[in-house]
């Protein structure tokens, strides 16, 4: 297997709502920018396959991939959908290239969350119809609550620790152009909020956001031709599911992150991740998840201690979500993984770091995650 290169990125939106454009027009804006960034290539001639990452009920359209190809340049070309997080889409692109079927692949993911009027009801529809949905949970965050309590008990994490994560990420987001929800809120502000589900307040839960991201990847040979050394390499990539059933997955522990990262590290020859990476960009759609994921990724065995010592702050030993994560930028549905990856790429291109770790989760009620190791060539 050969590593692949990220040669173009483009995005649009990252606003709470985008009434000016349809989701397809939004993706056209993002893909135009991505192809420009990839050395001004025309996707009609240069791109070998196209991947869209979306789910029917996020779109409100059954078989929503019908609406995927045109705005990406993929009409009458090999275009397909990966119904999953955008980093899974990237993994499929990695396979397209390594199987020999493609040299250049474009991957698209978007969120038109503002079009969804009954978001929590749709999340509920993803739960097991017989065992879980029929108990009629009042609030889909209850699974996060169960998971958080178990995790906090196991790793001696306090409610104050969670509030610190919120403060850190919301303020880190102030240096990102994509962070609509960045603010100078303090841990104390977080602690004074009422609970949605114990131990999580409204501020511990990342809001939704609209946006589209397109990423173009290629073999390294083509990357050098098109971009000299202005690209990043995907050195390791994997994804995993713990178990899809609530009762058979392990609560309190991000097993999916552990399995996926172990596979990605193996591919990238990473033996001690804490030392290897310069920064981590990880799913924090619930404040506790950032800490839980860092444990799963083998970045920290004592996340509370590391957090309190400032090791995860933008100036710390191993910055975590230095551009704000989902708490500052919002959750763009299946584009979530790409939104974290985009931060990693920005940080590398700004010269702040050379090696980044990206870890994405698919949210309630899944136990699925994806991990990518990206570096300067």
């Amino acid at each position, binding site marked *: 297997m050969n590593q692949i290169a990220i040669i173009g990125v483009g995005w649009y939106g990252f606003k709470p709502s985008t009434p000016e454009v349809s989701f397809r027009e939004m993706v056209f804006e993002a893909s135009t920018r991505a192809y420009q960034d990839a050395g001004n290539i025309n996707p009609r001639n240069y791109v070998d396959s196209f991947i869209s990452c979306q789910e029917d009920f996020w779109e409100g*359209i059954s078989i929503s991939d019908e609406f995927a190809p*045109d705005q990406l340049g993929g009409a009458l070309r*090999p275009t397909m959908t990966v*119904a999953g997080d955008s980093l899974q889409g990237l993994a499929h692109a990695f396979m397209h290239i*390594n*199987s020999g079927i493609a040299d250049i692949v474009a991957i698209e993911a978007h969120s038109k969350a503002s079009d969804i009027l009954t978001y929590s009801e749709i999340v509920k529809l993803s739960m097991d119809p017989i065992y879980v949905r029929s108990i009629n949970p009042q609030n889909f965050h209850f699974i996060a609550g169960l998971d958080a309590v178990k995790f906090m008990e196991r790793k001696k994490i306090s409610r104050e620790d969670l509030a610190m994560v919120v403060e850190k990420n919301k303020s880190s987001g102030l240096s990102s152009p994509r962070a609509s929800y960045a603010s100078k809120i303090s841990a104390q502000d977080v602690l004074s909020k009422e609970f949605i589900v114990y131990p999580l307040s409204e501020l511990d839960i990342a809001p939704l956001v609209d946006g589209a991201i397109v990423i173009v990847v290629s073999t390294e040979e083509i990357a050098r031709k098109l971009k000299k050394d202005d690209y990043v390499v995907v050195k390791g990539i994997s994804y*995993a*599911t713990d178990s899809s059933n609530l009762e*058979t997955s392990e609560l309190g522990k991000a097993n999916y992150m552990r399995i996926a990262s172990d596979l990605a590290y193996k591919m990238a020859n990473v033996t001690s991740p804490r030392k290897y990476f310069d920064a981590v960009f990880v799913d924090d759609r619930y404040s506790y998840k950032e800490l839980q994921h860092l444990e799963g990724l083998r970045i920290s065995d004592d996340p509370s201690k590391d957090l309190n010592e400032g090791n995860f702050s933008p100036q710390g030993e191993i910055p975590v979500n230095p551009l704000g994560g989902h708490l500052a930028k919002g959750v763009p549905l299946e584009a979530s993984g790409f939104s974290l990856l985009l931060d990693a790429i920005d940080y590398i291109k700004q010269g702040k770091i050379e090696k980044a770790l990206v870890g994405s989760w698919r949210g309630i009620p899944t136990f699925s995650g994806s991990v990518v190791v990206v570096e300067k060539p």
Partner: protein
Amino acid sequence: MKVNLYLNKRVAIIGAGLTLFRRRLLETPQEIAWEAASKALEEAGLELKDIDCVVIGSAPDAFDGVHLKGEYLSHGSGGIRKPVSRVYVGGATGVMTAIAGWYHVASGLCQKVLAVAEEKMSPARPHPQSVFKYIWDPILEKPLNPNLIWIFAMEMHRYMSKYGIKKEEIALVSVKNKRNALNNPYAQLGANITVDDVLNSEVLVWPVQLLDVSPVSDGGAAIVLASEDVARRYTDTPVWVEGVGWTLDNTEWPARDLSYARYVEFAARMAYKIAGIERPNKEIDVVEPYDPFDYKELHHLEALQLAKRGEAPTLLKEGVFDIDGDIPSSPSGGLLGVGNPIAAAGLMKVISIYWQLKGTAGKMQVKRPVHTGLAQAWGDLMQAGTVIVLRN
């Protein structure tokens, strides 16, 4: 534009499993997936712990009534504590699932892959048809209260009018496939019917009548794919994946001529190029084109370059596509005879070719020796084509 190629690795199918295809199954979607998956593992001689990655294929989430259906299905599909992902191109998903399984191995990412497709159409109320209203453009088309059959009927009528094809000629597909299905132990609708039966059946959306259409079904299908060295260790009769292709046409179906499936042609050309096939009608020994409607089989045979445009009905009449003909088509009985649990039906087509090439198709086995076979699926708003070429 690169359409191949010197592929890096050889990949074989070494096991397959199907559930019965039926109108209503008692089992949950997870249980249906589990049965197909465990049968495939058994045929391959592997256990779940041997599997590196799982690929899931399923069509609209609305059928099973579960959002994020891939996540939900992963448990029954053996996707536990390992990489699992779901691919999706509407009705073309079943063959795409096999293609994705292929590239999981061909890329070197995995050695042994379980690819599982499942669909449970029966839970939808008041009728599974109602789910299809939501596949149309929500702003420009849905207000007209369309049902799924409209779009097929429009395509069928366009095809008939462009090439002067009669309903009697098309009905022969239904007759052939339901007859073939009598030999298939998994089939829902095997029967000896006549052209008149088709022409006298209930008119749904003219020119589509009840016996022109595949039924509503529940069912699961699964295959195991492996790298060359693994395949040689586990079986003496591996069936190789020699070509794959997929294409998605543009979204605006009312703005293009429906008489010809150019998206299937493009997908087929990609697969033929990879497989080194130059004269498909001479080199393909057995074919499973996607046949949710009878005219669709003819439409697809033309796009696959196995018949000239508008001439598939003539070849059909001459017996070319019969089980003892030159190019047996849908020897399994197809969707018309076996049933149409969408993604599972597409993967069933791949499995049919796999069993034919392995020589284990039982009563479905075509008489002539076969070495190269093709399975194809179709989907979306007359848009998606997926093609896989297998050789023994």
